[in-house]
């Protein structure tokens, strides 16, 4: 009996409290900084090309084998504008199969791929989650702008110089 009354008290106390629910499609819960959404490709603003060289390291280590990449000679390198000798030609991630594990980011040597904050998976067609290079770069660009992302190597180098100056 006492237990029941105590339980009722909790119910009444909750009645006057503010609800904690987010009404999802209208209202989104804020995303944490570290949130790992889908992997996206990064765009090198300075040279106007993707960071990705199509080296396929990420493809090999992806546990679900959901990505493909093809490499080509970099035309900008021939013109002397870019230091990348090879560049990505086509790249595809099947986001429907990606398990968002972040292994591809860990293994990439060129800081070319990053876990974005993108997480909505609903699409109109069955194959729409197979994202090609253009779409991945677009999503990546949005992420870059949102967070002010900079490649880890660049950051590390800057920190090192800052320390040397101090």
């Amino acid at each position, binding site marked *: 009996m006492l237990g029941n009354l105590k*339980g009722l008290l909790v*119910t009444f106390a909750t009645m006057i409290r503010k609800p904690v629910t987010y009404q999802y499609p209208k209202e989104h819960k804020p995303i*944490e900084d570290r949130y790992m959404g889908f992997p996206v490709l990064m765009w090198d603003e300075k040279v106007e090309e993707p960071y990705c060289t199509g080296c396929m390291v990420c493809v090999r*280590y992806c*546990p679900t084998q959901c990505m493909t990449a093809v490499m080509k000679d970099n035309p900008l390198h021939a013109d002397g504008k870019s230091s990348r000798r090879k560049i990505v030609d086509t790249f595809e991630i099947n986001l429907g199969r990606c*398990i968002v594990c972040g*292994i591809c980011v860990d293994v990439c040597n060129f800081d070319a791929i990053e876990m974005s904050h993108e997480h909505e998976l609903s699409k109109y067609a069955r194959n729409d989650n197979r994202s090609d290079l253009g779409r991945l770069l677009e999503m990546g660009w949005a992420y870059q702008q949102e967070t002010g992302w900079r490649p880890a190597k660049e950051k590390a180098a800057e920190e090192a110089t800052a320390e040397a100056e101090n």
Partner: protein
Amino acid sequence: MVDVSVESQSEGQLDTVQMLVNMGPQHPSTHGVFRMVLMVDGERIVDVEPHIGYLHRGSEKLCEGEIYAQIVTLFDRLDYISNLNNEMAFCRAVEKLMSLEVPERAEYVRVILCELNRVASHLLFFGTFGIDAGAMTPIMYAFRDREKIQSMFEAVTGARMMHNYIRIGGVKNDVPDDFRQRMTALIGELRQGIDEADRLLSFGEIFLARSKGIGVIAPERAIAYGASGPTLRASGVPMDVRKDAPYSIYDRFDFGIPIGEKGDSWDRFYVRVEEMRQSLSIIEQALRDMPEGPTITPTRLVLRPPQGEVYVRGENPRGEIGVYLVSNGADRPYRVKVRPPSFCNLMAIRELLLNTYVADAVVILGSLDIVLGEVDR
């Protein structure tokens, strides 16, 4: 779904017919895809045949084809309610095989997150068990608090469920700068939330009537079945890997092991509630002592552990997880066997259900707190 069998039994004046009732595989009370074929005589269960395997993905076989770093992601998906505990078990197996040292700070981070995961898992159980017993609101309270834990995980590991955060040799990256403050605040909120939920449900008359004395299992039988975790402790056996064979840094903390008296469904429920409080106290102690330093021992991406076999035990929210790892010195394991805690707990279901009522079957099954991802692997 209902099949009337021909044999009939007369009991007093009434003619009763035994009936075959199929419960599951898609039944709200089975927490996944689990099927029980119940032979009932009126409301009384006279025979049970559990069927599992609907979620069999061959995880153990898949492990044989992946490199060690990738397998962590597979372990995430075994018991998808307590991912971090699973990851930790696998990583410990590899570390033990390779005699790899884990930095102090990483151990503390691991323990904090694993205990937090235990609280999250028990909160989920709290809610669903309430539903199984017919109380619809407790899950709202439990999920409100669980959501805070999930947000914390999101801030630390980057994912809400499949973290891939505990790596071989440590953890993926250091915790965020405001970790300590946020955790301290979170513990306070959780304490309050758990107390509140506890007051709401645990001692309610109807709830007690639904779960007290239902599904009793004697300690000897529970041991013979290989039950572990809260299921075994509810029967009064204080068996906990964290105490019996302390792994990681569990020997540094002061915590109690709640045990039940009778081994009925309510005991199994309340042991978990108490365990949440103990876990919070472990987290507090760990936060207090957490040293600074590196969080991972750098290893190569493709590991080649020495030839040999190793078995590690760990305490998951659902019981004792065991990972048996056989390596032949290659970059992929030769054999990985997981001893899933719910698998062993579920084995006792037949004995628990015999001679109970159909309505209680739901409560008893709920009190075992199974996760089918782990039972079927």
